[in-house]
């Protein structure tokens, strides 16, 4: 009963920006179908899904943090850190002796470390009351530094099919990480709409003092949001490493914070907090990925693409501010 009653209402009140996102998506698809060679091929879909998954996974975590009224600039650095740890673990003596255990640890330990980064961010923000930008700026810079220190700045290449499944495996012919992103989205959607934690998350973003005075566990929920965001970033970092069969601490997740923020905002997250459109984040990620792909496939240089991305972010936030006032 709840589902049937709520969904239509939710869609009806779904703000314009969501529809705007869909319009943008359609425009991009049509443009590519007309002008980009070989766009309408299964291979293209495959490539795009395998790349959009990492953005989407991080963007979902970012959406949770933005819902509390915060921001997490450290996602890219956490990706690099998690990605640097994984090969270190399964290439170690222990990992070489027990391949199964090695791969399991190579996934679990980096995610744990990523979670610790999230705890760090969360405690800075929720307990020490440091502004989120500054708090997460610390790991934004030094997280990648730690990853580089660990690997001495070297590119770590490896050949480990079981670990690489994270980035190259297929289920029903589509990339494993695409499915993973979908599962995460469904779980998070359920958490946000159905659990007290989700309700508190939105309440804190909507009015933190009111949520606190109503008995909301403000600190716990905020720290939780940063931890989830960091763990998801760690996951994304592992996937990138698995795709490349190599870990490059300098490049893994570089500028991901911008992609993730842009995807979340395009997807309808309000920077002031109080809203967590999980599927919107996926839509936003798809749009960002398509823009990248469109520029790349049509011979625009990478560097120019950066500038285009900057413009998209400004545009998305600007349109959001316009509606707000």
């Amino acid at each position, binding site marked *: 009963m709840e589902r049937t009653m709520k969904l239509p209402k939710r869609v009806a009140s779904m703000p314009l920006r969501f529809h705007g996102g869909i319009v943008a998506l359609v425009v991009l698809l049509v443009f590519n179908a007309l002008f980009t060679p070989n766009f309408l091929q299964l291979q293209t879909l495959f490539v795009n899904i395998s790349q959009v998954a990492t953005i989407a996974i991080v963007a979902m975590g970012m959406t949770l943090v933005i819902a509390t009224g915060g*921001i997490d*600039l450290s996602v890219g650095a956490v990706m690099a850190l998690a990605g640097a740890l994984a090969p270190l673990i399964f290439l170690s003596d222990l990992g070489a002796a027990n391949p199964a255990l090695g791969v399991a640890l190579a996934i679990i330990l980096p995610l744990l470390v990523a979670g610790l980064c999230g705890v760090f961010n969360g405690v*800075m923000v929720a307990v*020490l*009351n*440091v*502004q989120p*930008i*500054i*708090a997460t*700026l*610390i*790991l*934004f*810079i*030094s*997280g*990648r*530094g*730690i990853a*580089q*220190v660990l690997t*001495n*700045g070297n590119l770590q290449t490896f050949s480990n099919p079981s670990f690489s499944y994270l980035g190259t495996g297929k289920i029903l012919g589509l990339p494993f990480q695409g499915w993973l992103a979908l599962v995460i989205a469904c779980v998070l959607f359920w958490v946000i709409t159905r659990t007290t934690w989700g309700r508190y998350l939105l309440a804190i973003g909507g009015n933190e003092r009111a949520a606190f005075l109503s008995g909301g566990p403000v600190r716990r929920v905020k720290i939780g949001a940063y931890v989830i965001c960091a763990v998801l970033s760690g996951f994304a970092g592992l996937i990138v490493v698995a795709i490349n069969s190599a870990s490059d601490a300098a490049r893994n997740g570089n*500028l991901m*914070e*911008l992609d993730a*923020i842009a995807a979340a905002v395009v997807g309808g997250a309000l*920077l002031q907090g109080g809203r967590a459109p999980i599927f919107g984040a996926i839509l936003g990620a798809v749009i960002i990925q398509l823009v990248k792909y469109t520029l790349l496939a049509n011979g625009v*240089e*990478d*560097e*120019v*693409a*950066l*500038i285009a*991305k*900057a*413009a998209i*972010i*400004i545009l998305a*936030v*600007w349109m959001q*501010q316009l509606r707000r*006032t």
Partner: protein
Amino acid sequence: MLNETAFDLRKYLRRNSASVTVWVALGALILFGLMRYDNFGSAYNFSSFLNYNAMFIAIALGMCFVIMTGGIDLSVGSVAAFTSVVAAYLSPHGIQVALPGAILAGVGFGAINAFCIILLRIPPFIATLATMLAAKGGALVISGAQTISVDWGSNFTKLGMGQAFGLFPWAIVIVAGLALVLWLVLEKTTIGRTVLAIGGSEDASNLMGLKVNRAKAFVYLLSGGCAGLAGLILASGFGAGQPLEGIGWELSAIASVVVGGTLLTGGMGSIPATVAGALLLGLVFNVLNFENGQGTISFSAYWQMVIRGGFLFAVILLQSRVIAKQQKVIGS
């Protein structure tokens, strides 16, 4: 404070405890270095230290103004990288062309920031994060992702490598002049006081009829210009425009500003203390380099980022306690 008729030391210490602390820390670290390392006090170390840190001080000065309004500028590192390329291209025409050229390029990025923040009302960190991206892309585009060698024949490298009076590098002389001017601007002019008022309370500043937008535009233009100057010094000091430099510079700048007692939330700040903060952070690296040289620690270049982060973390821990205390006094 400049507006004291009779100097009251105790009052001064009470009001400026953060700046006093940073000066004391700076002095202590210098003393430590002098006692522990033979060449620490050498003229060479002295001038190369100042030379290397001049660009960080320049960026910190601009950042200080931005933070005093309660804003933030994350684009400074990329902008400096961009302007270092611009400066390298302009170097054959000499410093008299490269200097204004690089600064103008920086001011241009500042103008984009100001436009997005004031007119489009985009939160400063988003706007400047986007500019960071754009400047990075722009630097790579105009340089073709190569370092651009400067013209060694012109007087361009004199700025970054030459010395005034045989002791002070030109770069630090220029930055010191800039610091002096900005100090005057902050303490003695309407726009400086407006900057502080905005950080204290933007609503109140508006209701008082202050020219809020003008002051906000000023700080972002200034920060861009300072980044431009830093890029110029970078190109001139290292003989090349470096499109990939500047990573983490915003962090250093923010750390320098905050350690000097400037509130991250704005409304309070000091130019001399910001300079001291930048020198302190630079000196930490200098001391670590000496330790490295003595073989007591092994210190790869990648540690720099980690240390910058750790430094900022320590400073914020200290400041969050100070802020909590202040809020208790003023009342929440």
